[in-house]
């Protein structure tokens, strides 16, 4: 029976209460460990199309008569359009339409950052559209520019009020602590750089808008477009069969979609609007910089008695105030805690969610601070983490938590440090560091799926979700195959089109598998029940193959439907893990090489160990870029972005990859759905920066508290460590 319930929904660490109709979820979880299909490595169902270049991305959509759009962006970090003349652009060859501020959602009169969209042109070719932009005459009124996050906080320029958390009595606990450590950590702005840039192709057919878009959330895009344009939602069709990376930056339609839709409406032709790489690196979102002023107090036995943090997120012109304080609140048992988190409103491009937003940054600060505490207490860092293990989330029980088992599995990697130290020489210093991981990843309702079984014994899972490259298409096929008792090659998955299948959840916040997997299993179980009923009526013996049971149907089909059940009430659903990293630091040049990463994660049941290992490797590699080489730079005088090309913005290459060892505590979360799986997209990037920084300290004694740890930063930290050493010995400081 359908049930209407009020439930808490979490995406990227943001919570809201929603009403959902859920169906009873009577299925018992499968036993732990590898089953027939689930829990066994499976190459991706769609890998052949992707590898052979046959997969059709939004970038590959070619519609008859399609025009190309280009967007005029503000050259100023803060300015108002006083006057704009589109006529010279409209007079140029190939130009079919032009839009000024306010003529499409997202085109603004007041540009709050360099790169803000103000006008757009559609032309026969992209070259013509770009040329037309140059002809648009704009008179700007330049306004005051604020680029410094501390200044913005001082002046009360915030995106929202400060967020505060407090428990216990921090002042007293700090006063009574045997040891107090205090440090400021800074993380930089980094860019998603999905290889397929943000883009959409829009076409009006009758009164229906068809939107082909590179997105992580088909239904969110449909809803937002419908609401913005005043259309019924079923008059917007959203298609995304394959998408070339998002990492959190493609959850909404944004200006390029509305520009394409409006230009398509005006011209009566399909319009593509695709960001260039340089626009992508200016205005398509970023992981915002943070400043973290942290304090921790502990008793001499290693018990952490106080944690305090003042966090500033350099949000930009708009965006949300991510939970940078989250790890400090949740990772350790600590009775006395106080945090405040400011979201600084700046004349810089807006942040967007980027793979565990807030927690990547906050874990860097917290887990470095904990290692500094371990050094002061002379306690082994792994032991210190165990002594402060949290058994609940501020009193709320965990649905499951196997971090202790992660720590146990980490021991053999942690014990390598003696051997690693021994491989140091005069130039290359080697060390080992660790950091824990905590993040969300429980998913939730509403999410629906259908399963169709033909008389040939082949099944199709139908749901309008998206596979953003994480392999969820394959995971859904495995779950359905397991439940139906079919081999994986007899199950197909149709997804990526709001007109073909029921509502599916966002692919963000490590939620696709835990949201969609239970719905797919429920749909498959519904189909399987019908198949079993038929077998019984035909008096077929138990174990008769599906194809033999359904063969009599001819053109008939079995149709199963399923919905995602609710999350457990009164429980915190979280993911956990630990990384142990080995680094080598060239103390003469400041070069840092990550040599080995052991990653142990607890995300409940693993559906596809092969795809899961790829997720972990990808997260680690992205984390290495975040830690060592990536940084969006802007001109401090003008606020213009300097690192717009992939030459200036340095992402890891295949040559930067360390040895990666990937392990899972593969235990289903007994309280979470019929599947017991949590998400894995984000956990692997969370502890990387802290573990590398801790390994650097272990190798060299240098305190690296600022990302990225470039050669310059590394040399500065080494010199500071040497100066401190000289000071301790009482030697005169070098001039």
């Amino acid at each position, binding site marked *: 029976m359908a049930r209407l319930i009020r439930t808490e929904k979490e995406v990227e660490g943001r919570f809201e209460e929603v009403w959902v109709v859920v169906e009873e979820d009577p299925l018992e979880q499968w036993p732990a460990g590898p089953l027939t299909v689930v829990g066994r490595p499976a*190459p*991706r169902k*769609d*890998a*052949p*199309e*992707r*590898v*052979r*270049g*046959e*997969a*059709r*991305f939004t*970038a*590959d959509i*070619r519609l008859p008569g399609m025009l190309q759009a280009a967007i005029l962006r503000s050259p100023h970090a803060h300015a108002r359009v006083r006057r704009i003349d589109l006529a010279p652009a409209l007079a140029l060859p190939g130009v079919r339409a032009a839009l000024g501020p306010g003529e499409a959602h997202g085109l603004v009169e007041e540009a709050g950052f360099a790169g803000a969209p103000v006008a757009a042109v559609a032309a026969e070719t992209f070259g013509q559209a770009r040329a037309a932009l140059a002809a648009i005459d704009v008179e700007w009124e330049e306004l005051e520019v604020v680029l410094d996050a501390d200044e913005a906080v001082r002046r009360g320029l915030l995106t929202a009020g400060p967020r505060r958390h407090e428990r216990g009595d921090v002042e007293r606990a700090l006063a009574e602590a045997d040891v107090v450590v205090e440090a400021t950590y800074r993380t930089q702005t980094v860019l*998603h*750089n*999905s*290889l*397929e*840039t943000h883009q959409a192709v829009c076409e009006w057919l009758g009164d229906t808008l068809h939107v082909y878009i590179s997105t992580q959330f088909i239904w969110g895009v449909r809803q937002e477009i419908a609401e913005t344009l005043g259309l019924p939602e079923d008059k917007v069709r959203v298609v995304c069969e*394959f*998408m*070339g*990376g998002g*990492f959190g930056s493609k959850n909404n339609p944004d200006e390029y979609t509305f520009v394409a839709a409006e230009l398509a409406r005006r011209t009566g032709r399909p319009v593509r609007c695709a960001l*260039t*790489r340089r626009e992508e690196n200016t205005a398509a979102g970023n992981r915002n910089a943070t400043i973290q002023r942290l304090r921790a107090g502990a008793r001499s036995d290693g018990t952490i008695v106080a944690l305090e943090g003042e966090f500033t997120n350099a949000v930009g012109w708009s965006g949300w105030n991510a939970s940078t304080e989250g790890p400090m609140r949740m990772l350790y048992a600590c009775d006395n805690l106080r945090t405040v988190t400011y979201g600084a409103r700046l004349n810089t491009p807006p942040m967007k969610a980027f793979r565990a937003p807030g927690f990547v940054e906050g874990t860097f600060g917290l887990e470095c601070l904990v290692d500094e505490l371990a050094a002061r207490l002379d306690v082994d860092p792994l032991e210190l983490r165990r002594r402060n293990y949290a058994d609940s989330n501020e009193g709320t029980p965990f649905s499951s938590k196997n971090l202790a088992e992660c720590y146990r599995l980490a021991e053999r990697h942690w014990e390598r440090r003696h051997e690693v130290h021994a491989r140091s020489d005069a130039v290359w210093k080697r060390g080992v560091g660790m950091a824990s991981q905590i993040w969300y990843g429980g998913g939730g309702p509403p999410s629906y799926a259908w399963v169709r079984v033909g008389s040939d014994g082949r099944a199709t899972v139908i749901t309008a979700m998206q596979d*953003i*490259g*994480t*392999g969820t298409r394959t995971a859904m096929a495995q779950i359905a195959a397991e439940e139906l008792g079919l081999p994986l090659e007899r199950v197909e998955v149709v997804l990526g089109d709001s007109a073909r299948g029921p509502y599916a959840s966002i692919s963000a916040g490590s939620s696709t598998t835990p949201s969609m997997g239970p719905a797919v299993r429920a749909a498959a179980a519904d189909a399987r029940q019908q198949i079993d009923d038929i077998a019984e009526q035909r008096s077929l013996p138990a174990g008769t193959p599906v194809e033999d049971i359904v063969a009599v149907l001819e053109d008939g089909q079995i149709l199963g439907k399923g919905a995602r059940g609710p999350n457990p009430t009164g429980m915190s659903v979280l993911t956990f893990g630990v990384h142990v990293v080995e680094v080598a630091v060239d103390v003469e040049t400041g070069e840092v090489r990550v040599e080995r990463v052991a990653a142990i994660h607890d995300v409940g049941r693993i559906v596809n160990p*092969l*795809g899961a*290992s*790829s997720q972990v*490797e*990808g*997260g*680690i*590699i*992205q984390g290495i870029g975040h830690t060592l080489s990536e940084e969006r730079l802007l001109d401090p005088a003008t606020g213009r972005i300097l690192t717009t*090309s*992939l*030459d200036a913005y340095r*992402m*890891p*290459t*295949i*040559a930067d*990859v360390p040895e*990666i060892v990937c392990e899972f505590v593969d235990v289903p979360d007994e309280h979470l759905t019929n599947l017991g799986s949590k998400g894995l997209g984000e956990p692997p990037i969370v502890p990387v920066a802290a573990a590398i920084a801790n390994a650097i300290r272990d190798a060299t004694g240098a305190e690296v508290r600022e990302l990225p740890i470039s050669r310059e930063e590394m040399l500065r930290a080494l010199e500071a460590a040497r100066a401190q050493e000289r000071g301790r010995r009482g030697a005169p400081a070098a001039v």
Partner: protein
Amino acid sequence: MTELRLRVNGSEHVLDVPVGTGLAHVLRDELGLTGTKIACNEGHCGACTVQIDGEPRLSCITLAHAVDGEVTTIEGLRDHPLVDAFVRCDAVQCGFCTPGQVVSAAALVAARPSPTREEIRHALAGNLCRCGTYPKIEEAILSVAPSVEKGR
């Protein structure tokens, strides 16, 4: 418009495109060979890699009229053993960079049938993958090397 003669994957094409058009655009927009991806359009990422007479080239910064040789795109390598190796080893996540990776890797194994890890890293360092499939790409190339050798 200026006549362009182009040999692609064994077929001869005569096209009318403006001088200054990039090879990647001709492949994608004129010939419909959208397996070649454009991710940066300025020669920094390798997604647009094709082979010209077996050598890997960045088609986004190669002028179509300047091409003098046989162009091989991912569409011409669909039966290459590397394709199956990439699939088997899970050397693909979002897949946007993957055709370029395969084209670069195919040029490598043609020249060095049994490349070392170092040689793979050197040859593929110009092909960015934001999803971080690199370990699996390395594995895929290593796995296919002997079978390419055997095929000779």
